[in-house]
């Protein structure tokens, strides 16, 4: 009687472990596909970041900024006489 009990118990363990393997395998597939998606998104972001960085540095070239300041905004350096010294 006791032997049957032990066998039944071990059988339950084996079954449980087998089911867990199936479950974990499934879980890992789901997580992997999620990881791929996130990696793809990250890749897109990196590409976009690089593009924005390039765009930023192209627009912010000093020559560009200077010519805009001078031509469009009509800015200029103050002359010495226009300087005011704060005590």
């Amino acid at each position: 009687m006791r032997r049957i009990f032990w066998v039944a118990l071990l059988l339950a363990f084996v079954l449980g472990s087998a089911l867990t393997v199936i479950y974990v395998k499934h879980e890992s597939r789901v997580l992997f596909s999620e990881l791929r998606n996130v990696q793809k998104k990250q890749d897109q972001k990196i590409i976009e970041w690089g593009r924005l960085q390039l765009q930023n540095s192209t627009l912010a070239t000093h020559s560009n900024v200077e010519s805009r300041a001078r031509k469009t905004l009509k800015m200029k350096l103050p002359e010495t006489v226009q300087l005011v010294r704060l005590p």
Partner: protein
Amino acid sequence: MSDIDNQSLFFGGRHYFVLFVLLCLMIGLVGRALYLQIVEKEFLASQGGQRQIRTIETPAYRGAILDRFGIPLAISTPVDSVWVNPSEILQNLPALKLATRQLSINYISTVDNLKRKANKEFVYLKRQIEPELASQVSEGIDGIYTQREYHRYYPAGEVVGHLVGFTDIDDKGQEGLELVYDDWLKAEPGARRVIRNRKGAVIEEINQVSAAQSGKDVYSSIDMRLQYIAYRSLARAIKYHAAKSGSAVLLDARTGEVLAMVNQPSYNPNQGKKQSSDQRRNRALTDVFEPGSAIKPFTFAAAIDRGLYSQKSNIDTSPGWYMVSGHPIKDFRNYGVLDLASILRKSSNVGASRIALSMTEEELWQSFSDYGFGQAPGVTFPGESSGYFRHFADWQKLDHAIMGFGYGLSVSITQLARAYAMIANQGRHVDVSLIRKEPEAEIENRVQRHVMSSKTAKMVLEMMEQVVGPTGTAQLAAVPGYRVGGKTGTAKKSAAGGYDKDNYFSVFAGVAPISDPRLVMAVIVDEPTQNGYYGGKVAAPVFQEVMSNALRILDVAPDDIPSLQAQIADKETGV
């Protein structure tokens, strides 16, 4: 007995039952095996082919080169390279034709090329294109694949071309900082084992063999704002004077960091090797010249430091020339008796050579070596020159005399700038650096050894201020509101068999502000042919333009308020 019979019968039935079950199982297995081998063979084989275990590369990108505030000078952005497996794609020519049209490459020559390489498995179709286009081309087509790569961009283009250098298509540094710091910048792609389907898409990752390691960033010492201003001013001067080439170096006087280093002619690193090596050379570090009068402050410093002269010492320079070993040493005209400051202000060769001769050859050699002449600036840059400065044992008396006004030795403009930085840094040695130093570097610099006493440095600095003053040779270097000092140089270029009469180096090196030096700048213009050739006419205005902007941008407080107020008063009274 019947009990036993019954038992054996019972067990006999069980025996056949077991046999039967085992037989059924075996038939089942054999049947399944036959089915798989014969009926489903093709399907399974194709499925197996689709799922391959491959080791693929995890891309990693090269580190960026940045200016001291993090503005990118060189960055890597992802691009894709399109490659094909010739044996696969040659089965599908319409797809290849479409791909070549999308990539705008020649279809016929591509097919020819692929046929020649038909036994290979990997041939590039086009390298480094936009990821979006690449995925359009390769999506859904067997035999066309993409590979992630990184392309190097240089947003600042030719403004920093000489410093940054460039990389080749395989991302290896070829010149400039890209070459020097290649080990630091370079990326280590990782590797992982994956199961891929036939289209190359990863279905499952098995394990990671090695992790991808992206390159580390390099913060250079350059300040892009100042670099741009220096570039613009120098380019303008080279054009105005129709000169051959030119360089300018701006140093932080306290730390020795290079804030700006520009050369003309320049080149665009985005175009890499396509440009001539003459354009690609970082002249500020590689090219040497005879500094001429720009060396005089150091002749003075060496003599003053040894106590041979003081501020009040007078030297008789009349009649404006004298002979050394049968060669005349001449001044522009007869200046008569001059004090030290006036010798510098009028740039008297007679005076400077007399001072040089007042020291022994060894003393002069030792001091000049201490100021860094004949020593590489130590920025570790390809082709960096240490100039030309002979050991005193090889000097003739004439060499000794003309050394005092900058002939018989040659220096790079960076070496000259460093020497001026030593005067500006209260006589302490200065290490030049192209890499940003930590803020503590300034304190570290305070323990640098003295190459001259701080008293001497201060004295020379004040004499240099007079050169920029209303009676000096470099009035065009004056920056309103600031006390500025410096020295001009106009050196004849040496040519075969002597010195060229009409070709000059125009040099100016200076320090600002005098009361607490922050910046040091040296400018050289090679062979100015129009609108003057004197250092004070050609190089000094570049100094003035860059310095006045730099002092404003770096928020250095004016140390010469009275002159500003005088100007304001003048304007107000309408003078």
